[in-house]
């Protein structure tokens, strides 16, 4: 692939989802996809800013769109939450002339609409990448039973996220099946984990997470596979029955690349046993 993307790592890239961003980097470079981190970026507003002010939430995300526009390359976004916020801001800039005028003035730029927001799941699930992914596999994930957990932010609203199907998305499933894993169908693909209220309403989050995990266990899964930093944190930290692994960690395992053992130790439910003696 000859495309080069701008790259928006997001705040969790150096904290709660460090193993996600590290594994994204390894997988992208293994597939020959070039990325360049934005020279300057700020928080997208996450799940908090929009609760207090729509203008602030869109402004923070638009700051990053302004930076990406300067780089003249489509913006690749690994975190589902960041992807949702930046896509919402891009949508407002594209279709809401009043908000666009406001944001352009606040940020001192002129929106061209030439660059696009791209989630890493949508990139890696592209049909034309499948042969390259299959060719990189050193050790297929044969025998591993996985359920794919998409959560909310990558999925809804479909008009913003461009998801294949908001009730039954399959892009992660397709990637996992290509890696040789046994992908199990289940009911909670797009159920909510409690989101940012995990930090303030832990009891409720625990209830939601355990409802999801009940289904994953009943389906016979060895682990949940996700692409959302917040889902991973909530599900990993509120139960001790099953590991939840980032999809790029699974890819790195199949490719046998990266410092995987170090990533696994970052998990509260260490997934190391899944990958031993397979």
């Amino acid at each position: 692939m000859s495309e080069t993307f701008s790259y928006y790592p997001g705040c969790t890239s150096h904290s709660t989802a460090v193993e996600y961003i590290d594994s994204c980097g390894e997988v992208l470079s293994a597939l020959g996809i070039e990325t360049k981190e934005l020279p300057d970026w700020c928080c997208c507003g996450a799940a908090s800013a929009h609760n207090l002010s729509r203008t602030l939430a869109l402004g923070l995300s638009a700051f990053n769109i302004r930076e990406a526009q300067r780089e003249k390359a489509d913006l690749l976004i690994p975190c589902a939450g960041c992807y949702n916020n930046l896509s919402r801001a891009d949508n407002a800039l594209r279709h809401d002339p009043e908000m666009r005028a406001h944001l352009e003035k606040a940020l001192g730029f002129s929106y061209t609409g030439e660059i696009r927001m791209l989630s890493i799941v949508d990139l890696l699930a592209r049909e034309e990448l499948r042969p390259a992914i299959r060719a990189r596999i050193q050790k297929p994930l044969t025998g591993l039973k996985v359920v794919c957990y998409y959560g909310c932010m990558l999925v809804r609203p479909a008009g913003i996220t461009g998801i294949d199907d908001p009730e039954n998305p399959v892009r992660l499933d397709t990637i996992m099946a290509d890696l040789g894993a046994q992908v199990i169908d289940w009911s909670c693909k797009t159920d909510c984990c409690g989101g940012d209220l995990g930090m303030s309403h832990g009891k409720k989050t625990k209830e939601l997470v355990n409802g999801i995990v009940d289904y994953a266990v009943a389906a016979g899964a060895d682990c949940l596979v996700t692409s959302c930093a917040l889902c991973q944190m909530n599900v990993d930290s509120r139960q001790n029955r099953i590991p939840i692994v980032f999809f790029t960690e699974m890819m790195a395992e199949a490719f046998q690349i990266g410092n995987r053992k170090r990533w696994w130790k970052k998990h509260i439910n260490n997934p190391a046993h899944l990958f031993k003696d397979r």
Partner: protein
Amino acid sequence: MKVNLLKTDDSLLRRIMNESGQPVNLCFQCRKCSAGCPMIDEFDFPPNMVMRMIQLGRREELLASKAIWMCVSCETCGARCPNGIEIAPVMDCLRAECLEEGVIPADKTAVGLHTAFTDNVKVFGRLHEATMLMLFKLRDKKISKDDIELGVKLLLRGKIPLLPRRSKDLQKIRELFKDSGR
């Protein structure tokens, strides 16, 4: 309660529809939103009732409701609404109006989290979990055993860095806060 629809005040409905861009007037109470809402047990009014209350102009009760702060914007409702209403942006409007009008929020903990979070971004441009969580929990004065255990686990795994990372153009970021009144 008897509702006289001829005397209904539709100014709230018009304003919310304009600000959120959502066709709240189309809600015909199928209750798909409430059937799928993961947070409904925490709501005082289920989402379908919130839509009806907006149509009827029941502003005071809405702004003082717990529902507006317990909605996590998962958009399960929006994905299933036969009338194409996304409830999360509607909730955003109600939340903003609650704060602007100085109504005491029904769930101070949720507001405290969002405030601590955005305040932190105002300082660093990016989120610094350690200072954000510390300030939030100190102000909230509700630290559970689970919170402490989780904090220790994350610290031991190097997932809560002690030093913050900053954006370069902090001046512009602070202008964005000022511009939005936060």
